[in-house]
């Protein structure tokens, strides 16, 4: 009876093999093809690692992700801490309010930042009306706009993972710590922070890793200043038609994603 039941997984696994795994291998194959039709070559990868443009592009993509992750952490940790330890009745409502924007359309969200940040848009109008600035901040089509948009898209993940970790921290532990003579700051540093570490790490995983592969936010909010690996891959496929080279960059991106995931998983396993 049991041996037959396991075959129920076959259709789902087949779909994943055919439409998720096989295409990756096909992509790998293309990444070694030469554009001139001369068969297999390492040229696509060589170009990437030899041209300083692509290396600085890689670096600025990583830098983008680091900024987004750090800013998310700065917003998310206090927010999660307040929700878990300070708010009582309304914390579930706040939690739902933080979850809801996940489920709004990515493009709608990006588009809303576009009209919010555009020159003479709402943000400028607001800042003008309270006389903080005059004229326009010209935020749109800068790296700042990209980061504002990406943080907006990703920081709620971090709030949730840290919140779930902090919620598990028994308040009695904090009371025990202060009864043993620790100050509030000491208690936070020696008890709360280490215990919320898994939440921080999986939060970083859920922000940093997907950020590496974005191209919609950088393209729309950053314009020419928003170039990252994702947008370059998109250009290779839709503008330049350098499919083989595009495939090799996509593989380098995949490698970056897998490496950072494994590093973060490893850090999470250590303790």
């Amino acid at each position: 009876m049991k041996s037959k039941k396991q075959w129920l997984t076959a259709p789902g696994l087949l779909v994943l093999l055919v439409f998720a795994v096989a295409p990756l291998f096909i992509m790998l194959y293309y990444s070694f093809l030469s554009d001139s039709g001369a068969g297999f070559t390492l040229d696509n990868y060589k170009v990437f690692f030899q041209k300083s443009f692509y290396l600085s592009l890689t670096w600025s993509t990583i830098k983008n992700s680091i900024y987004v992750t750090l800013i998310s952490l700065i917003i998310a940790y206090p927010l999660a801490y307040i929700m878990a330890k300070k708010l009582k009745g309304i914390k579930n409502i706040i939690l739902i309010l933080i979850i809801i924007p996940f489920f709004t359309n990515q493009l709608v969200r990006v588009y809303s930042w576009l009209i919010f940040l555009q020159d003479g848009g709402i943000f400028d109008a607001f800042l003008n009306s309270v006389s903080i600035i005059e004229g326009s901040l010209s935020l749109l089509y800068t790296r700042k706009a990209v980061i504002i948009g990406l943080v907006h898209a990703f920081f709620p993940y971090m709030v949730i993972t840290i919140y779930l970790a902090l919620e598990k921290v028994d308040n009695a532990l904090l009371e025990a710590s202060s009864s043993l003579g620790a100050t509030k700051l000491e208690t936070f540093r020696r008890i709360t922070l280490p215990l919320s570490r898994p939440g921080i790490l999986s939060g970083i995983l859920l922000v940093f890793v997907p950020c590496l592969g974005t191209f919609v936010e950088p393209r729309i909010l950053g314009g020419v200043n928003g170039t990252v690996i994702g947008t370059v891959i998109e250009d290779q496929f839709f503008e330049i038609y350098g499919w083989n080279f595009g495939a090799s960059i996509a593989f380098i991106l995949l490698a970056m994603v897998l490496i950072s995931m494994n590093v973060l998983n490893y850090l999470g396993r250590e303790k």
Partner: protein
Amino acid sequence: MKKSGIISKAFVIFALIYLYTPIVVLMVMSFNSSRYNQMPFDFSFKWYQDLFQNNVLIQAAINSIWIAAVTGVICVILATLLVLGSQALSGRLKNSVQTFMLMPLTIPWLIIGLSILLMIRALDFEKNLFFVLAGHTVISLPYSVLVLQARMQSMDPALEEASASLGANVMTTFRRITLPVLAPAMVAGGFLSFMISFDNFVLSYFLMPSGFSTLPIEIQSSIKFGFTPEINAVSTIIIGISLLCLAIVGLIMGSSIKSLFGKKEV
């Protein structure tokens, strides 16, 4: 104590403003008669009226809905089979299968979309709706799996044994006990996959045959080639549909919605 309480509340409010301002602005602007979202605000239903005469957008909306619906149904069926089947596995194999089922969550959608596009080219096919559905299924499936797995894990294994001890055979037990107990999760998982597919831009962008579009694609091209103010109205409607789906999922699954935190997007 009091002071820290005020700071805490201020922080929460600041975060919520950051989270909601652009969305609210967009919804408000859909009722502003200015073509370029400029102030002063002048209330009007103009863009909604235009929207209902814009055949391109209406067709895109219909496409989005049916693609998402088909994807949702396929995902529920595949996910239910996967979850039921993986119960019968044990040890290492079970772990590997369960990790594999969630694999598409860890790969950027950009790469999933591109690699399917390359496969279409390698096979010398034209882009067609079959591959659109396949792509949407691959990225939406893990969400159905997560919901169903959570339900399956919280299901008491003694239920099936109780049914057998009362005289029901394997088929009857599946039909009368297992399926009804899983049913709410199937509905919730289906809606979640529907929503992921409905909102998805990246996969559609890479795989859509020419002359065919979905709402996210229309929004993108409108951003690229100049504003069509109906987009505000469309976006507001999309947000409405998404919230409705979320509310349904929330009602069915209750607090276990927290278990969905494997979700990520590109």
